[in-house]
């Protein structure tokens, strides 16, 4: 599903954000990226999502060679991915329902089907009863779950999450990671960045450790580099 070969990313003349990173995540797998902030976790996810282009190296995701993907083909590629952010990035000018429906609007779903899918996604994250409220009125954990519902509503083949538990207490964090595990069980490939090594280790999934833009070590069963 994800295959990076000797990928380097440099922003301007700054030091390399990622140096010679190679990794492979198989379809249907679930893996974690850990490391301190500034280690390059977000950059790695942004490269995989096609939000940045590598300075060097090859990235292959879901059958697409990202370095050869034309600008016109990028929207189509992104529709096969779900992205979750630490800061949720919800739109506060519209209710929860419309936030979750956004990817389906982009895919031009018709109203009845859209309603069905949005409600299914909200139900999965336990927020069906909040569909009409403004996300501003929700707690941090609830906002994050709305962000997750938006990321999975169009049933992407790949789910990328950047510090999805960053602002949450341990109990909520476990709940969120459990949600990702549930999605993975139904076939969604998932790659999750987190600095919380203790939390991640309890999930029993492959872990990739990033330090200063390099892959430092691998826990047992980690994705092959």
């Amino acid at each position: 599903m994800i295959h990076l070969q000797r990928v380097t990313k440099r922003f301007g003349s700054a030091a390399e954000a990622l140096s010679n990173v190679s990794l492979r995540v198989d379809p249907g797998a679930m893996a974690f990226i850990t490391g301190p902030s500034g280690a390059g976790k977000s950059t790695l996810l942004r490269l995989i999502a096609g939000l940045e282009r590598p300075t060097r190296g090859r990235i292959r995701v879901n059958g697409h060679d990202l370095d050869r993907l034309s600008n016109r083909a990028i929207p189509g590629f992104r529709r096969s991915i779900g992205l979750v952010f630490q800061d949720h990035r919800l739109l506060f000018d519209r209710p929860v329902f419309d936030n979750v429906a956004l990817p389906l609007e982009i895919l031009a779903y018709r109203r009845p089907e859209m309603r069905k899918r949005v409600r299914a996604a909200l139900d999965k994250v336990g927020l069906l009863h909040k569909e009409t409220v403004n996300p501003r009125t929700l707690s941090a954990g609830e906002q994050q779950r709305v962000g997750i519902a938006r990321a999975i509503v169009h049933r992407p083949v790949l789910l990328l999450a950047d510090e999805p538990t960053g602002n949450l207490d341990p109990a909520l964090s476990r709940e969120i990671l459990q949600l990702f595990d549930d999605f993975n069980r139904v076939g969604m490939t998932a790659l999750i960045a987190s600095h919380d090594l203790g939390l991640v280790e309890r999930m029993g999934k492959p872990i990739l450790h990033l330090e200063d833009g390099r892959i430092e070590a691998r826990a047992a069963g980690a994705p092959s580099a």
Partner: protein
Amino acid sequence: MKSARRLQDVVPAWLEAHRDAARRSLQRRLQAPVLSLISIAVLGFILALPAYLWVLLDNARALSAHVDHDPRIALYLDEVEAGAVADLERHLETDARVERWTWIDADEALATYRDGLRDPGLLDWLDDNPLPDVVDVVPATADPETVAALREALAASAPGATVVSDDEWVRQLNSLHQLGLRILAVVGGLLGLGALLILALATASELRERREEIAISRISGATHGFLRRPSLYGGLITGLGGGIFAGILLLIGIGLSRAPLEQAAAAFDLEFGLALPGGAHLLTLLLAGLLLGWLGARLGSGHALRDAP
């Protein structure tokens, strides 16, 4: 994903997406009514000025039609031989450029002239009739070049005749009208360009307000077309409003100019009523507004979306 969706849903889904974009665009405008009204007013003012000039020009042309301006060609036949007169008559009957013609006999002309005099006895001291026979020709068209060609042809078929045409002032009037149209085009073009830039700026700033939504939509795979759609509908809404407002301004402007223009015309002994702008004028204004609104939004959104993350 896409494969789960049926092909027959594509068109209705597309229509729904457009309806949603239009609705959202309208809602956004209703939420900030003052800003939207300012855009509409600016476009209205910009459209109203050239439209006002246009209506005046149209009226001026109607005025010149009002003053009998059919060009005429007069042939004075004083030194023409009888045989040539027959040739001339044949020519007048067959030339398609001739609408109609009248033979004014010299004696008839003198009699008419005598009737018009306060003291008809004045002419009695003349030994003979000094007036020539005259042929008054009305060309089929007012086109100056055709009239000039006809004039040449008539002069050739009646050697010795003095041929006088009054197409010169038609030419002058036409060139004045052409000049007016040219000025209208320049003024209209410059103002239109200005309106385009203002609308593009308004669209770009609206997109800046939407930048978080645009960023999220981009990440979710939105295309340029999808992101631009609400702006294009916004441009059409502004354009429609601007066109309607310009139409109202035009009606008011013409209404206010009516009395002074008619007084001025009366001072020149002209009977002249300023016609209100017709359906064609108002429809053109509306279409110009829609076109400018759409183009401005396209220009502004193209620029803003290219720069967006």
